């Protein structure tokens, strides 16, 4: 175990998250069970309401900790970089343990899992919170069952995520496994296998097309979100929101390719260096632009979930308003991240 300030903070955060998420899963299961029994007595109803209230308060705190844990993970990984002579950025840290026969062999899959689970966890946490925002305004809290189900789902994922993080921090990383190399060979060599594009498409011309594609998808998404957010009386149709969601997925893919193939080399002032991890220490403001972009894509997904799961007669007026606000947030995110990347690329 490598002990430094960030690792201690992350270990503390992960243990707290593990405990809280286990509690959330337990309380959620109890809430769902008592809800399914449907005991109408006043006492039983009060107990159920109190339990749900406690669950949602706990889940709200867990949501905040889950959000904080995402950047903290990368701060920990960045703080590990000087520990190995062959590592120059976070990419190298993610490869530590490759080829090992000891416990270190679990490090790369654990980190891959964490990197995939964090965004999913924040998306799920945001989804329950958006639905809860609709539910709390209704008189009979008719969406409580669905909110609790989403809370449970994010709780289960949080248990896995926190357990993986504790395991990653605890596994020794000083095993002699030979040089694993870093991002230069992985991203920049002609035979690089971690790039999104095949070798034939890695040209200046392809970069121009990618830039156009990225700007076009962002513009279309921003316009779509803005148009649908203007509808005040009628909710946006599920078909329109599903189309927007599919667009957000395309946008996410185009954004990731754009970041690696075009933005990273420009922002790093290294025309053939395509490592997105290097942006964290060398151009940290670009992470804000990327976060705005992710927020925009997530907001579209949250709007879709609210439209799908919040379809109760009593909740409809609040559902319309919440979907509208989420789409407005998505529009702001797409415009903001595009503007920010444009300014950053112009200054680079």
């Amino acid at each position, binding site marked *: 175990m490598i002990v430094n300030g960030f690792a201690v903070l992350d270990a503390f955060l992960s243990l707290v998250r593990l405990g809280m998420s286990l509690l959330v899963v337990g309380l959620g299961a109890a809430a769902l069970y008592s809800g399914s029994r449907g005991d109408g007595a006043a006492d039983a109803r009060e107990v159920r309401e109190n339990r749900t209230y406690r669950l949602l308060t706990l889940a709200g705190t867990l949501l905040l900790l889950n959000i904080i844990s995402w950047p903290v993970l990368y701060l920990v990984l960045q703080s590990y970089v000087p520990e*190995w*002579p*062959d*590592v*120059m950025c976070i990419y*190298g840290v993610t490869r530590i343990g490759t080829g090992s026969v000891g416990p270190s062999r679990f490090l790369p899959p654990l980190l891959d899992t964490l990197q995939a689970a964090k965004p999913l966890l924040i998306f799920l946490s945001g989804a329950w919170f958006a639905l809860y925002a609709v539910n709390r305004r209704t008189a009979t809290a008719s969406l409580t069952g669905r909110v609790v189900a989403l809370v449970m789902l994010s709780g289960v994922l949080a248990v896995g995520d926190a357990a993986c993080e504790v395991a990653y921090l605890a596994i020794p990383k000083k095993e002699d496994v030979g*040089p694993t*190399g*870093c*991002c*230069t*060979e992985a991203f*920049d*060599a*002609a035979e690089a296998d971690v790039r999104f594009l095949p070798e034939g498409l890695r040209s200046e011309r392809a970069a121009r097309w990618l830039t156009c594609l990225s700007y076009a998808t962002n513009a279309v998404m921003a316009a779509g979100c803005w148009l649908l957010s203007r509808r005040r009386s009628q909710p946006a149709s599920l078909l329109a929101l599903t189309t927007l969601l599919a667009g957000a997925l395309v946008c996410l893919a185009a954004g990731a390719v754009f970041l690696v193939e075009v933005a990273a080399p420009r922002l*790093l*002032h*290294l*025309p*053939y*260096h395509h*490592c997105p991890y*290097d942006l964290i220490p*060398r*151009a*940290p*403001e670009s992470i*804000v*632009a990327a976060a705005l972009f992710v927020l925009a894509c997530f907001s579209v997904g949250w709007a879709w979930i609210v439209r799908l799961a919040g379809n109760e007669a009593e909740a409809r007026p609040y559902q319309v308003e919440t979907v509208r606000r989420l789409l407005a947030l998505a529009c*702001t995110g797409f415009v*903001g991240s595009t*503007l*920010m990347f444009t*300014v*950053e690329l112009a*200054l680079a």
Partner: protein
Amino acid sequence: MIGKGNLIRLLAGLLVVVGLPLAGRWLRPRAIDACALDGTAPPPSYRVEVRYAGEAPLAFCCVRCAEMWIENQTTPPEAILIADEASSRLIPADAAVYVRSSVLTNASTHCRIHAFGRRADAVAHAARFGGTVLAGADRPFATTHPSPPAPGSE
């Protein structure tokens, strides 16, 4: 008409999206002597300099980085200089004697190619670290800067 609250939000947003990149650029020091490929500081004994006509010389931290850079160019470089590992003095790449040995010159690229100004230094390194003196097409930059024929050869 845009409301006062919205105007404040708009201005705050603009301040973030424009001000943050500007502040980042202003506050961040520019690396003066960094590898042109991956941005790390080139160690004096493994430094490579690639020169193109009418351009400032580009520094690299190892032979592998310089080769990757050259692979991406359409025009061959005008000159390549490489540090003699024994003295850290820059010498023309085509005059250097290269050894591939078990010692890494740059662990992040797995580069194991060492350059020496004197053949005796190269042979001594090869003998000490189980290396091979590179010749012909095995030499780095062989396609862009072929080595002069060895004395006594045809």
